């Protein structure tokens, strides 16, 4: 019994140490974001909170367009999250609840796209989308930032797997009741798939919020730029970099995905566990 409590205390100590180590860079950024320029460059380094309060945050938000970038990114991530979930659910519905010719081919067509990350074909995608945008006068728009990402194999397979784990009697009952496929989707599948929807939504939101290379190459107007590339711009002023301000910007950029993560954390792990069971 005594050994057990000793072990538990040791585990607590180890875990607290690890948690602090993992959090250290963010705590450091948080402390520095509240310091004045003089405090930031003070030697030896000051690690506590400074006297600048929210000043750096205010400057980053207004003078360095952080507010604008955050708004743009929120819109882009929101659009992709919504449509990707919708399109993936519809595709999952077709793959699970219908028989049709070439079904296997469709399955592999979607599956193979797992091997095509954006970064790999960045040159050709850039050429294609900028030509399309020029033809449609859609340069530097939300469209070029969202449309290429509205579908994904991950989403389709998540719902395909999830729907096939749902007892088939449900669909039978729905059909007997005379409900069409869309009614069935909306009033039966969606309510019982909430964990899977949340899991996909969370992954997609964070993926879009953290996107870097695509906005970097495709956006040429500062007022349409997204948050991660905006952060890059702040550090590019080199020797005159105001690091307190940059840290404030980094903290701001972390907040929305962190909030979404907090809200959906439970559904995420549950949705994931569902996917695991097969």
């Amino acid at each position: 019994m005594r050994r057990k409590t000793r072990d538990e205390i040791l585990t607590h100590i180890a875990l607290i140490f690890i948690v602090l180590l993992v959090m250290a860079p963010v705590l450091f950024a948080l402390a520095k974001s509240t310091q004045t320029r003089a405090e930031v460059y003070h030697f030896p380094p000051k690690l506590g909170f400074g006297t600048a309060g929210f000043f750096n945050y205010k400057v980053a938000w207004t003078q360095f367009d952080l507010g604008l970038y955050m708004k743009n990114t929120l819109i882009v991530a929101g659009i992709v999250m919504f449509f990707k979930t919708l399109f993936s659910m519809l595709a999952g519905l077709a793959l699970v609840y219908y028989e049709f010719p070439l079904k296997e081919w469709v399955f592999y067509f979607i599956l193979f796209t797992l091997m095509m990350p954006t970064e790999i074909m960045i040159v050709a995608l850039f050429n294609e989308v900028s030509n399309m945008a020029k033809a449609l006068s859609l340069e530097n728009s939300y469209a070029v930032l969202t449309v290429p990402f509205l579908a994904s194999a991950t989403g389709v397979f998540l719902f395909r797997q999830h729907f096939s784990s749902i007892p088939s009697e449900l669909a039978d009952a729905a059909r007997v009741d005379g409900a069409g496929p869309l009614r069935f989707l909306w009033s039966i599948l969606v309510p019982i798939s909430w964990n899977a929807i949340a899991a996909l939504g969370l992954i997609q939101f964070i993926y879009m919020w953290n996107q870097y290379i695509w906005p970097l190459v495709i956006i040429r107007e500062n007022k349409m730029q997204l948050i991660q590339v905006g952060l890059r711009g702040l550090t590019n002023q080199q020797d005159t970099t105001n690091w307190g301000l940059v840290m404030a910007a980094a903290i701001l950029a972390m907040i929305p995905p962190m909030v979404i993560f907090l809200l959906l954390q439970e559904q995420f792990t549950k949705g994931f566990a569902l996917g695991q069971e097969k």
Partner: protein
Amino acid sequence: MSTAKFKGRWAPWLFLLPTLIILALFLYYPVIQTFRLSFYRVAFLGLKTKFAGLENYIDLLHDSAYHHTVGVTLVITTAVVLLGLAISLAISMLANQKIHGAQVYRFLLIWPFALSPAVAGVVFLFMFSPGFGAVNYLTSLVTGHELNWLGDPTLAIILVIMASVWKNLGYNIVFYLAALQNLNTEVLEAASIDGANSWKRFWYVTFPLLSPMTFFLLITNITYSFFDIFGLVDILTKGGPQDATNVMIYNLYRDAFEYYKTGLASAQSVILFLLVVVITLIQFRTSGRQVHYGG
């Protein structure tokens, strides 16, 4: 999934249409174009292209700078994957113990899931800056002199590896914790009754049972250090110093968007694509069946 529940000839195609159109237009088409572009070369400041056959590939094959890029990618990928998985597994094992406040610890460990490579890059750049960076101050207290993390090639590689491992910890811990919680505890209890100590239990029971998850994470971590690392490298080192951290994806980006060598960049894309295909095929072949015996 064998029995159809709804009837309709066109309905399934209608439901699949948005997904299929987007995948065809923005994934398949650019991939095909990438292959095509890799056989061309741009001339006269991008105004003209001419067919070049395999020239781009031959150039890459003979280019020692490209060999260096491939080498750097292999070193960084190996380190990020092995360190990342080992550290996250160790942390997950600790956090999976039945102790008070386990939920709180778990949450405090998985939040980096939401971190972006750019944020990781910015924070590490500041922490390791010469002169006023906090880490430098600490290392100078210990070693007596400042370490030039951003100017020394070896240190810059270590810095990129540390930042990448840190950024991906949350992701790996989420998946390892989920796998640990789904483990069959009877086997572990049986092993412990048989007198196996905790190290033996881990090495002969837990680790083999976790191997499907380890394999999945191996693949996702390889893709992470091939591609997602881009933003981190771009902010932290810009591929420097002296190309020490110039990974394949960064080299490709610079050739395409800074030097406008579209053909050469596309050939690099094709090489990366083939690498990804091989990795994915390994994943498909193994993920269906269980990696550990018994199952």
